[in-house]
Structure formats: structure tokens, C-alpha cells
């Protein structure tokens, strides 16, 4: 008997042409797709019962010059086989002027995740209602979570960390 992951993989491969799907680890399905098919893949998965968007993450593969977006889906189902599944939908976009369509129409809770990625990685989500700053107060030339942003150097420049405490002026 095939397990839930394998069945889903077959369904996915039947419905979409240019995606790669791989079942690893029994309860994990990894789907690689192009950036314009993400939203259709996600809505397909949503309709198949994987209706909980757990996380949208981003990995900066600076050597390949790409940002990899990872959408992690699980199911709210009470059915054991389904509830155990973790689906990772991955897509790669360029690091220069990165942008893709928002998935808010499919998953409402994607809104803060996309806002966060916009702020920390500089990814522009087309169709997002408010790409305003979420966490940060200062402005950064390079979005701080990108690999080429060197926090230690930045800290040295901005906060004067070393030497230990320099407060001579105040003590005068």
C-alpha cells in the first residue's frame, strides 16, 4: 500500500508538468517548482486538505545567487496519515530585485510572513496589501538577513562595542 505522501506526489506530478516532487523521511514531501506556479501548487495542496500554512521561510544561497523560498504546509486534519505530513514547497528566485506573487489569496496568514521576508530579505511580493516595515526601526542598505550583511561589522560601526565601556564624556 502506498502511503499518503506517495499518493500525493503522484497526484501532483499528474496535475503539474514542470515540478519535481520527492518523498523523503516518510512524512515529508518536498516539491520544487517555478516561481509562477507556486500559487497554483499551493492552492492545489490547499484543496487537497493541506490547509495550514505553517511557515514561509527564505534561504539565501549566495553562492548560487538565488533566494530560495520555502512554504511549509501541514494539515488541520484529524486523519493521522494526513496530519503527519509536512510539505515543503520550494522555489528559487534571483537575488537581484527578487519578486513574486503573494499567496494571501490562498492562505490568509501568509500576510505577516511575506511582510517579514520583504523586510529582512528585500523580496517584493506583488499584490501584498501592506509591505510596510514590521520589526525594524533603522534602515539598512542590505536587508539584514541576507548573507552579505555582516552583523559583526555593522555592530562595530554603529554601536561602538569595543572598547568595553567608554563613557568619559559623561563622567566629566
Amino acid at each position, binding site marked *: 500500500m502506498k502511503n499518503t505522501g506517495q499518493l500525493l506526489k503522484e497526484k501532483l506530478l499528474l496535475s503539474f508538468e514542470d515540478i519535481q516532487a520527492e518523498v523523503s523521511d516518510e512524512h515529508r514531501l518536498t516539491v520544487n517548482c517555478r516561481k509562477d506556479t507556486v500559487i497554483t501548487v499551493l492552492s492545489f495542496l490547499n484543496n487537497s486538505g493541506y490547509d495550514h500554512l505553517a511557515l514561509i521561510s527564505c534561504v539565501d544561497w549566495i553562492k548560487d545567487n538565488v533566494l530560495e523560498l520555502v512554504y511549509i504546509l501541514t494539515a488541520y486534519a484529524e486523519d493521522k496519515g494526513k496530519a503527519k505530513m509536512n510539505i515543503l514547497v520550494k522555489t528559487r528566485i534571483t537575488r537581484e530585485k527578487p519578486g513574486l506573487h503573494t499567496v494571501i489569496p490562498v492562505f490568509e496568514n501568509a500576510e505577516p510572513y511575506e511582510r517579514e521576508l520583504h523586510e529582512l530579505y528585500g523580496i517584493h511580493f506583488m499584490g501584498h496589501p501592506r509591505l510596510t516595515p514590521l520589526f525594524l526601526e533603522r534602515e539598512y542598505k542590505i536587508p539584514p538577513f541576507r548573507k552579505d550583511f555582516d552583523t559583526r561589522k555593522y555592530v562595530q560601526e*554603529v554601536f561602538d562595542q569595543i572598547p568595553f565601556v567608554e563613557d568619559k564624556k559623561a563622567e566629566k
Partner: protein
Amino acid sequence: MDRNNLGKWLKSPGKMGQKYSLHALYFCTGCGIIEIPPSITTRWDAERFGVIPVATPRQANLFLITGYVSVKTLRYIIRSYEQMPEPKFTVGFGSCPINGGMYWDSYNTIKHLDKYIPVDGWIAGCMPRPEAVFVAVTHLWTLIDKGMADGYNKYRANYQYYRENQEKILGKLEWPPLFSKNIKHEEYRTIA
């Protein structure tokens, strides 16, 4: 404790008032706040030391900077601190405000709190336990007695310096300077 020093009390009632009614500002600045609820409730009961949390900066004279201070929080710390009436005392909690602590290489937390507002005492630990908070309070009493807890005077005297540092991190501050010019420390009379 110095309950026997009644004479001393009577000599300086002003200081006594400052010492034994430290009203702490209710502001969770960082993770050190987790030890404040135990301190103010049944088990430890900070009220025995005259420390109670109050709602607004206008009523408070003790500012507990509980843990790390992110850049965004710093703005509100400064605002709250400036709104507090004098005399006011600041206590830094844990490693983070002293020298960055756990977040020494974070791009979004400040490393030395005393560059932005004056701090009268520091407590080591991550977190400091409630006991350490109480000992800090008793130490603060001593400092108040000796007139050493004069951070607010330092703030007045070196306002320019603090304001410069604040603006270096936060950009142009939207509120006007609290003090118009650098006023010498001595010109200000301390209470009692």
C-alpha cells in the same frame, strides 16, 4: 536593614521618602521582565521593600531596564525616562545592557545602555533572580543615602551627549530636547 537608624530617617525625610517608595515603571523592555511578576507577587512580595509597579511614567521614579534593549524599544525607553519626574533612578538588569550580553553581535540591540540614558545600578545575571533584585533595591537605598544615585542630574548635565548618542542610533528624534542647554551639574540642587 537600617530599621534601627531612626535618627537618620528623621534627619533627611526627603531621602527617606525616595528610598522607601520606589515606584517602578510598568514597562517590559526585555526578557528580564519574567522575574518581575514573581517579585511583586506572593512569593517574594516586593512591596515589603516599597517597590510597586505603577501604570505611567508620571507616577514612577524607578525604571527597571529588564534585559536587552532593541533599537525600537530604546525610543520608548527614552520617552518614558524623560517623562518620569525627578528624582528618578534607573537599574539595568542582567548582562545585556552592560555589554551586549547574549546579543553582543545583534544588529538590532544596543550594547551599552549608559550611553543613552544614565544608569544608577547594574545587576549581574541572566536573569537576575528576585533576590538579586531586592538586594539591588537595598543597594539603591545606600546610593540614595549617599547621594550617589544621581543619574538624573548627570542626564541634565550631559544632556547634549546623551541626545547625540540617541540621535546617532534613532535618527532625528521627533520630540524637542528636554533641556534647552547643557546645564552644569552643580547648578541643580538635589532634594534634601
